[in-house]
């Protein structure tokens, strides 16, 4: 068992007089070792890691975006998803290297604070926490759309749109469940992801065969760039929310077994798998209806696609899958947000109280409420596209900075930096990853960019006020 020494020494104090918790002594395949023979067990295997990545991502790209993306970019939305996947892959590779060098809780925040210093770390860490809330809220609104579609399917006519109400209900329920529930949620997550992949594979296989004319249906040939070239990039920026999940694997890097092997496989693997599913989904969906009609169906367009192919049973299957997928995405994001709060509070960037563990349930109730509360406010806005873009914005900043952090660390080459996985094509891959991440932001709506910048500024000011003296940067 290879022991990897950890040699980063944080220092300083925040306003409340709390200092960052000491770093562990070593990292092994099975544990993180602290002094005095205290160990933290690693319990998540490769399957668990993949389930976190895929489970977080697949809800959005397949069940919420197809209609919206087709309305914006036409058939070329397929290309938008491919571009998103390529950028995600360009970031996932450097992230894998950083994660194997520093397999600790907190993911991107941890890498950037250790590689580039507290200020960048604070912006990314607080941004990650808020970004995950925007992402959760986005998934919950998507869930609301699917639940409303269920009502519509049952013929229950409601005098008002239940989308936001249902989103709020599930948001509150999820937070409460996370605090009070101690059942094995990871196992459930694995099963949910497995079921989703099976349902989707069946559905998409049928769809592809149908699209190429095997069942005689055939499709109307359509111009690929029916909306022009520019919307392809703005759509890529919009749907990038579908690729935020792989970094959530890094958030629990401290709990992954054999991190040197499993982290890169889980992150790169989940990006590749969902990219294939997304591209095929959009292709099938747009060839079934054409972009215009698909766009009119909005968030639950996939239900109509399934109905077109397989009738009512198809629609019911996709409705069920959509509910499951958006629910599991929201759940995974809330849990990741709570991990982010823990990482920040461990490093004295948030009050220590924020990561306090509930004595009765053993769960971090303060962190979960800190994630769940604001999510409800965000859900109440009901702005699917805005929520998605702000979430993407805050993540893209982190992705870009992770690539920069990798280049910084490689150039300074400090003694403690010894990743077991090395990114191929250095320095080109991380450099393009950084440029592409920052570049994609330019194609977002001005409102999303504005909110994102305000969040970053607020994060920086919080750091200056609360933890200006805390140093987290590794010795480089």
């Amino acid at each position, binding site marked *: 068992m290879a022991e990897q020494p950890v040699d980063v020494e944080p220092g300083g104090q925040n306003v409340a007089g709390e200092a960052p*918790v000491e770093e562990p002594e070593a990292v092994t395949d*099975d*544990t*993180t070792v*602290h002094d*005095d*023979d*205290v*160990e*933290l*067990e690693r*319990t*998540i295997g490769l399957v668990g890691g993949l389930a976190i990545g895929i489970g977080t991502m697949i809800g959005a790209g397949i069940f919420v975006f197809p209609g919206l993306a087709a309305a914006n970019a036409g058939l070329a939305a397929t290309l938008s998803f491919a571009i998103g996947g390529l950028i995600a892959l360009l970031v996932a590779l450097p992230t894998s290297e950083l994660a194997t060098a520093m397999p600790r*809780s907190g993911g991107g925040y941890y890498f950037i604070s250790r590689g580039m210093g507290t200020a960048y770390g604070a912006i990314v860490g607080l941004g990650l926490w808020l970004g995950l809330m925007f992402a959760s809220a986005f998934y919950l609104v998507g869930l609301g759309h699917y639940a409303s579609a269920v009502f519509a399917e049952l013929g229950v006519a409601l005098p008002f749109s239940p989308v936001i109400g249902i989103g709020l209900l599930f948001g509150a329920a999820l937070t409460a469940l*996370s*605090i009070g*529930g*101690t059942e*094995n*949620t*990871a196992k459930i997550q694995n099963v949910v992801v497995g079921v989703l992949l099976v349902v989707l594979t069946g559905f998409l296989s049928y769809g592809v065969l149908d699209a190429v004319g095997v069942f005689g249906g055939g499709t109307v040939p359509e111009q690929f760039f029916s909306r022009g070239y520019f919307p392809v990039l703005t759509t890529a920026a919009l749907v990038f929310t579908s690729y935020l999940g792989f970094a959530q694997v890094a958030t*629990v890097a*401290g*709990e992954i077994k054999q991190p040197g092997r499993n982290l890169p496989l889980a992150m790169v693997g989940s990006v590749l798998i969902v990219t294939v599913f997304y591209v095929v989904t959009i292709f099938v969906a747009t060839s079934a209806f054409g972009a215009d009609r698909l766009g009119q169906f909005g968030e639950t367009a996939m239900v109509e696609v399934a109905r077109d192919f397989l009738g009512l049973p198809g629609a019911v299957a996709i409705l069920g899958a959509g509910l499951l997928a958006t629910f599991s995405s929201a759940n995974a994001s809330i*849990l990741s947000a*709570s*991990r982010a709060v*823990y990482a920040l509070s*461990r490093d004295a960037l948030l009050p*220590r109280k924020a*990561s*306090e*563990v509930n004595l009765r*349930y*053993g*769960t*971090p109730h303060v962190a*979960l409420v800190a994630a769940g509360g604001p999510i409800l406010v965000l859900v109440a806005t009901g702005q699917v596209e805005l929520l998605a873009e702000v979430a993407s914005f805050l993540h893209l900043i982190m992705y870009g900075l992770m690539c920069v952090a990798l280049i910084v660390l490689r150039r300074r080459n400090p003694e403690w930096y010894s990743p077991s996985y090395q990114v191929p094509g250095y320095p080109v891959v991380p450099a393009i990853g950084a440029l592409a991440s920052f570049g994609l932001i330019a194609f977002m709506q001005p409102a999303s960019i504005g909110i994102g910048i305000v969040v970053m500024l607020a994060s920086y000011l919080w750091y200056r006020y609360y933890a200006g003296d805390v140093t987290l940067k590794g010795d480089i």
Partner: protein
Amino acid sequence: MTDRPSILVPIRVLEGESVPEGVPELLAHAHVVMLGYHVIPEQTAPGQAQMQFEDRATERLDEYETMFEAAGATVERRLVFTHDGQKTIDRMTAEHDCMAVLVPNATGAVEDVLVAVRGAVGIDRLARVVAGLFGETDASVTLYHIAEDEETDEDVGTLLEGMVNRLKDQGVDASRIETRIDRDREALDAITETADTFDTVVMGETDPSLATFVFGMPADQVADRFLGPVFVVQRDPTPNEDEE
């Protein structure tokens, strides 16, 4: 001192589990690997629990360490925060090369030890644990075997005799060793029932099967029903070390 068998003593240190009465004396001749562990739900990062609970857990482990040492044992300790208690116990057993895991239940002074001898497999380790723990005490050791239909009395005799010889070689006085054989009984019930009149049980680990998956390991079931301390002798780890 090299003959002290390493015994893993897992304690859920923050859930009110402590070292029960009589256990330090029971382990006076052992090398105790004391595992204080705390199982946390998946919503919680292990480090988060560590931040809050490490001091309290360490305090208790200090106390327990003193108890074991006062009784005469040598002690090694670990504190682990985990999502999966069983994985932690298995890993500790392998890493510290523990001969047996103790299910710590309270007991009085140990006068009678029941040793369940299942078959020839693993009998060496069983003998080493029994001899190491009780060789220098006055406790009487009863070797217990539940014969299956196809086993002849001769087979059973050879098996138990082999065990007796091993114990004698390792310094257990032959006059303290008894044997007892039962036939046509369900092993688990038989062990639990017989154990009633004994102070502690030493038994082997069984291979995981569907039944153990559904009902739990037999050793755990025995421990649940017997209510006294049970030593579960671990299989020799060398042959199938590279699982997963």
